[in-house]
């Protein structure tokens, strides 16, 4: 018995150590970014680099946030990410539901094609999208960029939602239909509430994909719809790299997604484990 207790304690200690290592590995870059954003300009470029600065300054934040176009770029990033997430969910939820409930061969082909689309490099569709959006008269708008971002997140959204719907037994739909629901009614009133955690996870992935996306933002926006990742990258110029301002703006830009993740944490965990016990 004592042996079992000792072994249990050892295993728990090893687990905690592993968790601590993983947390440090994931967390250190972000912590380093935060610490750098409070360093003086000279300390940000020190060789060898130091983790902690000898002085605390908000100068980098003042420079970064005072730069022309930063506030507008935040609004653009938010609008684009929200819109892109909405487009992804509106298309992915019914698509995934149909695939899991009707189980037709074409549905299986469709989901495979979605996966293949996910593998296509973004730059390949970049050039056609530039021409297409210009012809449609929506070049340099958040709407165009959101549509482009949705092309990136949609395949993953469909796959995620498919796995979440798969975990919900068909009997639930049948019961809803017996109670008078149509197929869509069963989806809206019964199945969707059950997979709300999965929807939250999918929404977060879609939101993050758009929030952090760089290439399409670079190719498809100019003045009106430019997003923050481009503004952050603009701190690196041919004439030098303004590490302090770059890290300050990156830190500010991280706040919404960190908050979003904290707020939706419960749903995310629930969503990630939703399909885990499927028999």
């Amino acid at each position, binding site marked *: 018995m004592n042996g079992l207790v000792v072994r249990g304690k050892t295993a728990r200690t090893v687990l905690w150590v592993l968790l601590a290592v993983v947390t440090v590995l994931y967390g250190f870059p972000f912590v380093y970014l935060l610490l750098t954003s409070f360093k003086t300009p000279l300390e940000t470029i020190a060789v060898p680099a130091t983790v902690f600065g000898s002085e605390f300054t908000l100068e980098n934040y003042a420079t970064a946030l005072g730069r022309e176009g930063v506030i507008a770029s935040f609004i653009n990033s938010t609008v684009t990410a929200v819109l892109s997430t909405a487009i992804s969910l509106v298309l992915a939820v019914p698509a995934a539901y149909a695939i899991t409930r009707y189980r037709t061969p074409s549905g299986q082909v469709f989901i495979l094609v979605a996966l293949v689309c996910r593998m296509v490099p973004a730059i390949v569709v970049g050039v056609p999208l530039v021409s297409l959006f210009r012809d449609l008269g929506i070049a340099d708008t958040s709407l165009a960029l959101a549509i482009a971002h949705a092309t990136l997140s949609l395949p993953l959204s469909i796959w995620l939602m498919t796995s979440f719907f798969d975990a919900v037994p068909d009997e639930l739909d049948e019961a809803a239909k017996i109670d008078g629901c149509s197929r869509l009614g069963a989806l809206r009133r019964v199945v969707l509430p059950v997979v709300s955690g999965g929807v939250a996870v999918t929404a977060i992935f879609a939101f993050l994909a758009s929030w952090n996306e760089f290439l399409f933002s670079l190719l498809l926006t100019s*003045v009106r719809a430019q997003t923050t990742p481009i503004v952050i990258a603009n701190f690196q110029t041919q004439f*030098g790299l303004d590490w302090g301002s770059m890290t300050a703006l990156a830190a500010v830009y991280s706040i919404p997604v960190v908050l979003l993740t904290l707020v939706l944490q419960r749903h995310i965990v629930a969503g990630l484990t939703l399909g885990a016990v499927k028999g």
Partner: protein
Amino acid sequence: MQHLASRRPSGAAARSTTKTFLSAAAVLSALTLAGCGAGGGGTASADDAESLTVLVEAGGKAELTGVAEKFTEETGTDVTFVELPYEGLYNRLNTEFSSGSTSFDVAALDAIWLSTFADAVTPLNDMFTDEVTSDLFPALVEEAQVGEDFVGMPVWTNSEILFYRTDLFEDPAEKAAFKDEYGYDLDPPTTWEQYQDVAQFFTRDTDGDGQTDLYGTDVKGAVETEWLATVSQSGAENMVLSPEGDVTVNDADHLAALDFYVGLNNDLKVSPPGAAQIDWAGAQNLFYQGETAMMRFWAHAYPQTPEDSPVAGKIGAAPMIGGPGGVAGVPGPWYLSIPKTTEKQETANEFLQFAYDNNAMGIDSSLGLAARVSAFEEYEGKPGYEHFDALVETLSAEGTKPRPATENWQEIVDSALIPMLQKALEPGADNQQLLDDAKEQIEAIVQ
């Protein structure tokens, strides 16, 4: 009753209506915002003749802002800048030129992109009069011409010059010690041999802990331009490629340049460790930390030393050093070009001419650069512009040559030149063999 019920919704129904209304309002707001974007202004459209959109690298916007404001004042034409990061700008230009339509009316192009985009931009031959060409550095005029046409108007140029620490070079004790050891005065070096001597002299352990903490210079292995300047200093007639397309990278001059360049690190050991990974930012950091006594670097950095740097106020500037072929640098100009696809050819042309006429305004910007010789000369000798003498002398030197005009240049740099330099910085490297290998790679790229 039924009628009344339908007109006065129950609590749940009212909540539902409110929810629907709010959702619709939210979607409409989002779509409205999405349709516009928050950046305001908007890109120029073909029918909006009173505006120009200028695509520019983020670091270069400051150079053009003053000119653009004056242009708007005098002509009433609004100028909107689209700022992009360096790598992103190239991708954007490539994408838009490939798509056959462009969202900008003027673009600022790095010199090394002119050959790549020459077919997509309007020739500016009428603008390059004798008067204009005589007021531009010869290398800039040469670079602006691709085939028969001038495809860009230089707007500012840079070049590497020599930065040195005046607190060391002007210290009487250091001067005396140097003269004792080398037999001539300690001054900013002008030749390869002097550079080696001074670099060796300053490489030392200053705090007596047994570790070298001051180096004579840096050696940059992660960028190629400084080695290319050394190639020109060696007297090489052609840098990497001849105008006919023959690869000359493994000739005797290139070898001499490589031997000198990496020898500072490999043989003399006068540069900090990790040379293969040192790029512009890394070299600048070392110098600003006071870890190197000299630095070959782009002239724009002269007024930008951080105030809290231990070497702030103690930096001098001299022309780039010379080898057997004399003093030479590699010019780093940017050009304004007009895409063939813009409908605002006339206004764009007017803007380019205006930018040339008011070129000196760029010197008042944070970068402090111009392209016209007369613009630099106007500021020579003024406080804060002590580096202009060195810059003008380097850019005017006979050996200063532009990089080869080939659309494959970026690929040559990334695939052949930088890897070759990094391998050459490894102990025991066979420089001739590395250059021979580079030649093969470059031939495969250009053929």
